[in-house]
Structures are given as C-alpha cells and as structure tokens.
C-alpha cells in the first residue's frame, strides 16, 4: 500500500474540475440556449444579439473578457478531467502520457483563450 504515504496532487485538478462543473451547471444550459437556439432561430433575442461588433465589444470589455476566459478554460478542465476518469472506468487507465494529453489539452486551450482575449484588445 505505498500510495497511502504519498500526498495526492489531485486537489489541483479536482478543484478545476469542480469549479468548471459548477459553472457548467449554472451557465451551460443557458449558453446552449442562446448560442444554439435563441439566436439562430431569432427567438426572444434580437437577430443581431451575437453580431460581430456586439461580440467584439463584449470581448473587449474587462468583464466580458473575464467571463469568456473562465467559461472556456474551466469548462475545458472540467471536460478533460471527466473524460480521463471515464476512460479509466472503461478500462483505459491513466498513465502519465494520457494525463499529459488530457490536462495538456486543457492547458493549451486555456492559454489560447487568454492569448486571444488579450489580442482582441481593450
């Protein structure tokens, strides 16, 4: 029973997973509704609700930037953690390579999101 003596680093990933899960539960459905149903079908919201100038202005405002960043990044950490554990349940056990692939992808998306959000200016 060696692993009993080694402190687990899971809290880092579990924390990101938990935060992403909470956010997904709060914002996920309404985001799907807005971006996938309401805007394309012009239901409730005006047709230009997600037009280029509006979305650009949103992404240039500090609050919009913040929101976009946490939604993209934390959803991604949540999803990759879940996929990693589901693979484990299916018999594909997380070796170091698989962990790097999953969490690495989440990190890549996080950094890309940050970079794009900075690039669109203020």
């Amino acid at each position, binding site marked *: *029973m*060696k*692993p*009993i*003596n*080694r*402190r*687990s680093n*899971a*809290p*880092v990933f*579990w*924390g990101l997973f938990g935060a992403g899960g909470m956010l997904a539960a709060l914002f996920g459905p309404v985001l799907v509704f807005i971006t996938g149903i309401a805007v394309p079908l012009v239901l409730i919201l005006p047709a230009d609700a997600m037009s280029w100038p509006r979305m650009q202005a949103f992404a240039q405002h500090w609050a919009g930037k913040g929101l976009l960043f946490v939604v993209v990044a934390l959803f991604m950490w949540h999803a990759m953690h879940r996929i990693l*554990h589901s693979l*484990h*349940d299916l018999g594909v*056990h997380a070796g170091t390579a698989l962990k790097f692939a999953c969490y690495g992808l989440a990190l890549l998306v996080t950094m890309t999101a940050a970079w794009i959000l900075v690039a669109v200016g203020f």
Partner: protein
Amino acid sequence: MAETSGNGKVIRVEVLRYRPEQDEEPFLQGYDVPFTDDMSVLQGLQYIKDWLDGTLSFRWSCRMAICGSCGMMIDGEPRLACKTFLRDFPAGTVRVEALAHFPIERDLVIRMDDFLAKLERIKPYIIPKEERTLAQGEYLQTPAQLDVYEQFSSCINCLLCYAACPQYGLNPDFVGPGIMALLHRYNADSRDGAAVERMEIAGSEAGVFNCTAVGYCSEVCPKHVDPANAVNQNKTRAAGDYFLRLVRPKGGAK
C-alpha cells in the same frame, strides 16, 4: 428442520463454489432448498450445509445484520444474507456468490486482509485531544457533537460498499468507502485529536480522490452509514489541506 416441511415451496439456490485444493476455478452449483416465507438466504445456505452438502463454506454469526460477516453477492447485488429473504425471489431461483472485488478464500468466504490492513492504518479509535486523568472524569460531549459523527459509527465492516465500488474494483489500493466512513467517524468526533494524521491517508494517492462519485456504496450499505458522504466531505477537506499547506509558513508538507 421441522419448520421447512409441509408448505411445499422450493427454491433453486445457485452457489458459487471454490475449493482451492481441488477446483481449478470457481463454478456454480445448484441446490433445491425447501423454504418458508420467514427464511433468509443465510438460512437457505444453512439448510444446504446441514442437509444437502456439508462441504459448503460461508461466514455468519449474528443472523440479525449486526456482525457484518454474511456479506455476499445475491443475484449480483452486494447484500447481507441474513437480511435478504428467499421469498423475495419469486422466479424460484437465486444466485449466491462471494463478495465482488475480493479474493476468494473458499466458496463464499473472501479474504479481507486488505481491508483489515487499511483499518489499522487509520487508527480506528479515539486519540484524545487532551488526556484526562480519572479524577478529571469522563470526556463529555453534547448531543449536537454526537450528531456530527453518529451515523458513521454504525459501520459493521460488512464490506458491501467495497463490492459495490467500481473504483475499488479497478484499483484495490484505494482506501475505499467503508474505511473513509470510519476515518470520518473519528475525525469528526469532538473528543479526538488525530485528524491531521488521518487526513494524510485521506489526501494520499490511495485516498478520496480515487472516488468518481458513483454513490452505489451508500445505496447498498445495510446500516445507512452513507460512506459516499464521508468520502465527499473529505474531498473538500483534503483539497483545503492541500492548498492551505502552501500558504502556511512551514508545515508538515510531504
């Protein structure tokens, strides 16, 4: 067995047999067992042993869901044989197998060495926060302080939750639901002072983060201990410890 004669009901009990000295691998053996509505699966097994086949081995003691020795897979579900009744299998057949996820010692008897080793590791007894002399009297506790851990103290070490836990099945290093319930029982006790020590186990690579919140452990628990709740409370606490350790000046970081 006078009580089993006369009512004419018979159930087919399929039992997983394994006698290491003669069987290559476990196999199912069927027995026809006459029964009455008040007979448990355990009593069915006792009938087999007394009247049909004396070589059958299984554990039991209290017959009343207190000792925790008669855990087995009954029609694929982890259950106590003394708390499960033959009348509840109207199809006229029931399959009884050794508890899942444990090595079989013989027939329905499993080896619980792994569980016992882990149980020892968590120091399942109160380690007083402050020693009191006899003259100082007993360690007092309010009803509210009792409420915090009482439910977790009902664990009877039956291991049903281990047979239910897919994560324990995949990785037996995981300390598992029952041990976490007991660990929590002592950590949450106002008289105890050894929580920090036990949290090293909860927060280790064998600890709570192996759990993927399946929750089946709490469903099968015959004593309503809710081990999943103990695991989840300790995920939060272990995560808190993990990050707090980084901001503390100099702690027992490992």
